[in-house]
């Protein structure tokens, strides 16, 4: 497949995953709400435990549904959205680097086959990781995966910075980026701090922070809907711009990107 086809396939796959995540959320909530309403009306929901032969008790069931739908279900769906975002951006970087492996090192000059300065290489790889690889494609593939893995532990602003210095998409815009940073900060807070807002969240979310320290991250439905909409818009805009770039000659590298070191990594 061509670079353009690869990009389009990734974008389609990402949009499909977003649609599936939305359907999962909305259908699960509707099903739970139906049961909640039956419980409120005192109607038996007809669920029998085959081991004990007992009907599901409706006591406490109604309020449990509230927790399932507005906490556990929304948080599960939100985590999936964050995974989709990460896999979209890192997937885009992977596809680009496979097409243009020279972009692994922005100081490499394809015209001369040399680096432009002698400072530390952007990527340093232990020889032991290369010796078992048989050809250049395998070595480059290994380097690309190492770079992707390295980026996956970094903040989204680093992902977008890395993309921008290679592809120059101009998307997402600053306002969208701020919201995406907040999303990732909220996800990290749920994942690593039981949802209690700490300094990490405040720092990572920046101006788009929705909570202050010691509050609890709440993923409510309007926020979830806004996240879906944001990811759809961002994915679509980035995919269109990427396809446009992939159709033409490779864009020239940005000149003003610092001197040596890892300013572009």
């Amino acid at each position, binding site marked *: 497949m061509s670079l353009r086809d690869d990009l389009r396939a990734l974008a389609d796959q990402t949009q499909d995953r977003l649609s599936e995540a939305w359907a999962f959320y*909305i259908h699960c*909530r*509707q099903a739970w*709400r*139906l049961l*909640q*309403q*039956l419980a*409120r*009306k005192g109607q038996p929901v007809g669920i029998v435990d085959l081991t004990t032969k007992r009907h599901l008790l409706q006591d406490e069931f*109604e*309020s*449990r549904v*509230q*927790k399932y*739908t*507005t*906490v556990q279900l929304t948080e599960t769906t939100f985590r999936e959205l964050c995974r989709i975002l990460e896999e979209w951006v890192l997937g885009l970087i992977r596809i680009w680097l496979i097409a243009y492996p020279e972009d692994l090192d922005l100081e490499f000059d394809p015209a001369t086959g040399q680096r432009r300065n002698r400072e530390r290489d952007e990527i340093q790889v232990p020889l032991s990781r290369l010796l078992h690889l048989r050809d250049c494609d395998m070595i480059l593939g290994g380097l690309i995966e190492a770079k992707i893995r390295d980026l996956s532990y970094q903040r989204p602003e680093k992902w977008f910075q890395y993309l921008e210095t290679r592809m120059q998409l101009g998307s997402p815009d600053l306002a969208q980026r701020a919201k995406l940073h907040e999303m990732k900060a909220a996800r990290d807070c749920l994942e690593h701090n039981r949802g209690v807002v700490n300094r990490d969240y405040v720092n990572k979310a920046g101006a788009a922070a929705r909570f202050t320290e010691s*509050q*609890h991250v*709440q993923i*409510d*439905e*309007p926020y979830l*809907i806004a996240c879906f909409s944001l990811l759809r818009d961002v994915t679509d805009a980035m995919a269109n711009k990427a396809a446009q770039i992939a159709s033409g000659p490779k864009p020239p590298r940005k000149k003003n990107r610092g001197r040596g070191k890892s300013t572009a990594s």
Partner: protein
Amino acid sequence: MIDEMTQGVLKVATDEVAGPYLMVVITQLDEICAALDRHKIRYWVDSDAISINNEPPVTVINFGRAGDPAKIQAILDEAG
């Protein structure tokens, strides 16, 4: 305020983790939301409603973890 679903008093339900919520028939939604808005209560409404056996559709008003059930109940009682 009367709960049109049960014809009893409209009562705020609550869950320790999820916070308070109200299950209401959609014909009451505007009136309840107006009362909540007057008191600047933060809430969100499910994006759909469910009707069982052709009865009036019911939706849920959610207040989240930070919701204060006593305050919300007082607003509803006062509005009724």
